[in-house]
């Protein structure tokens, strides 16, 4: 087990390296020049060239890459081209809102979608099943920003129950924090719930037709016990897989949702950095995201062995 863990962590290194190189190359090959943006519209060609030289952007790409990679190995993500703040500090400041939003979204979706999927599979063909499946199609097809604005209109403007947008850190109190995060989390959770509910239903349908479910009934066990202890446990591997994939999808979803709700998180930081071609910041964020993704995958793989004794590495 530990051997596997170590091997997996080591295997993640080349993944992260490839991602880094790819992102670096893509950014620098794409059109757009941060020096020109900093210099402004009235700057002369010399001004721009001077700024470029100061930022080291006049160096050959290879040199730029290795300079950055060298810093990285020393644990330094570099400084923002625009604000000159260290990238690690910028990311650190924005981490809490994004983490809150992601965890809250996961929490809401799993808490609602798994039971919905289980009930839909148990009562397959009934109106509950059809309702859940209809909801899933709806959740998939309506874009997050539409749902976001509708929720704002209903719950923040018409009913005035929740704030329209913004973010309050947890340190400033539980309710202010929660009230700000509910609408964006629900917005994000909707598509995600659709995905989890569908997979849960499909996996449960598959398990419920197995012989050991009949055995469980023949033992005299009550239906909830059969559904949860016997069927859901056996259906858990695909469900956990999809939740893991969903975390990766969330990273993309967070960017849009943070814009709609004006949450100062990593998503907003990413969008701003991309618009201004703030190379070190973009690179830093993507490194953090890919690291998070590798970690999530590792956790999912570990969960497999807990959920299914037949899976051993």
């Amino acid at each position, binding site marked *: 087990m530990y051997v596997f863990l170590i091997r997996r962590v080591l295997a993640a290194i080349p993944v992260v390296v490839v991602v880094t190189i790819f992102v670096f190359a893509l950014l620098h090959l794409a059109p757009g020049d941060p020096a020109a943006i900093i210099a402004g519209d009235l700057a002369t060609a010399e001004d721009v060239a001077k700024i470029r030289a100061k930022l080291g952007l006049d160096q050959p790409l290879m040199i730029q890459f290795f300079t950055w990679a060298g810093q990285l190995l020393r644990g330094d993500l570099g400084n923002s081209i625009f604000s000159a703040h260290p990238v690690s500090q910028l990311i650190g400041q924005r981490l809490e809102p994004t983490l809150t939003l992601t965890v809250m979204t996961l929490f809401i979706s799993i808490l609602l979608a798994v039971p919905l999927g289980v009930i839909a599979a148990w009562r397959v*063909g009934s109106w509950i099943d059809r309702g859940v499946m209809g909801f899933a199609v709806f959740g998939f097809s309506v874009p997050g920003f539409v749902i976001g604005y509708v929720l704002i209109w209903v719950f923040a403007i018409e009913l005035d129950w929740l704030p329209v947008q913004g973010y309050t850190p947890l340190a400033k109190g539980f309710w202010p924090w929660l009230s700000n995060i509910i609408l964006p989390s629900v917005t994000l959770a909707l598509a995600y719930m659709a995905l989890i509910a569908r997979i849960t239903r499909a996996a449960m349908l598959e398990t419920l037709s*197995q*012989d*050991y479910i*009949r*055995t*469980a*009934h*023949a*033992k*005299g*066990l*009550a239906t909830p016990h059969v559904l949860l*202890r*016997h069927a859901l*446990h*056996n259906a858990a591997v695909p469900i956990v897989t999809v939740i893991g994939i969903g975390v990766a999808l969330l990273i993309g979803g967070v960017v849009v949702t943070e814009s709609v709700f004006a949450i100062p998180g990593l998503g907003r930081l990413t969008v701003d950095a991309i618009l201004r071609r703030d190379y070190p910041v973009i690179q830093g964020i993507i490194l953090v995201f890919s690291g998070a993704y590798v970690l999530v995958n590792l956790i999912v793989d570990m969960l497999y062995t807990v*959920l*299914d*004794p*037949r899976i051993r590495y």
Partner: protein
Amino acid sequence: MTPPVLAVSGLRTHFFTRDGVVKAVDGVSLSLARGETLGLVGESGCGKSITALSILRLVPSPPGRIVEGSVRFDGTELLDLEPAAMRAIRGNRISMIFQEPMTSLNPVMTVGRQIAETVALHQQLPRRAAMDRAIEMLALVKIPDTRRRAAEYPHQLSGGMRQRVMIAIAMACTPTILIADEPTTALDVTIQAQILDLMLEMKERTGAAVMLITHDLGVIAETAQRVVVMYAGRKVEEASTRDLFARPRHPYTRGLMTSIPRLNRDADESARATRLTEIPGMVPALINLAPGCTYAPRCAYATGQCRIAFPPEVEAAPGHLVACWNAESLPEMERA
């Protein structure tokens, strides 16, 4: 005579499918005396398993439904019971062993817990005591190294061992009736006898009545006191094992008997061994059945009357029931 512990009468279990109504069980009556072993014989798809599942009310629904009949267990009508009362009987007073030991155990639960779960449920024992009982059961079904095995998962056990675990689950609450649905069919021939012996031993120990479902007449001859032969959802013959083998009265039962391969002691004879007699044709699809005897299309003795109405059950000899218009006029059976 004491009343039977289980009396099934006029049981009809139908499946309502898109293509029509499948009459999987269509008017079956049988009874089981306390401590008796009853064999339920027939080809695949003749309704044996559905009869068993109907007794426990485990027929998958939809599409299946018990449309008519009565199942009396120890004086209680099972078909009228509340779900909770029915659950208290399942796995406790009537338990069941299934055909596929490979797939009938939950792959993500230790075998110890799978046994303990039943015990804890029906005997209201705390976890610890239930697990102790489970380990005791593993010893009873002759699994060595019980403590270690109890902590293992089904995939770590062989097919024979898994069926032993199934028997342990079924017998853990000392049931009054054990229904065994083809318990040895999926096992290696060498293991089959062991599992049968084990089942009979457990039966002796607890005094349970056994309903043994099989298509193997050899198994019946060795274990059962009485036999019910089913064909296409109906009972066609019922007799004591001795009477049935001595004088099968239904053409279908005869067909089953002559299709058993025999090892001839005489080497010469086996050299010019005759072909096995097979029953021509196939079990009919139990959908849109024509009127008349369901076996008539395959029967060598079928007459005009056979195609008009299903024959009534007649007591041809004491305790020997047969449903065949021509049972009395069949020629003597040739013996190999």
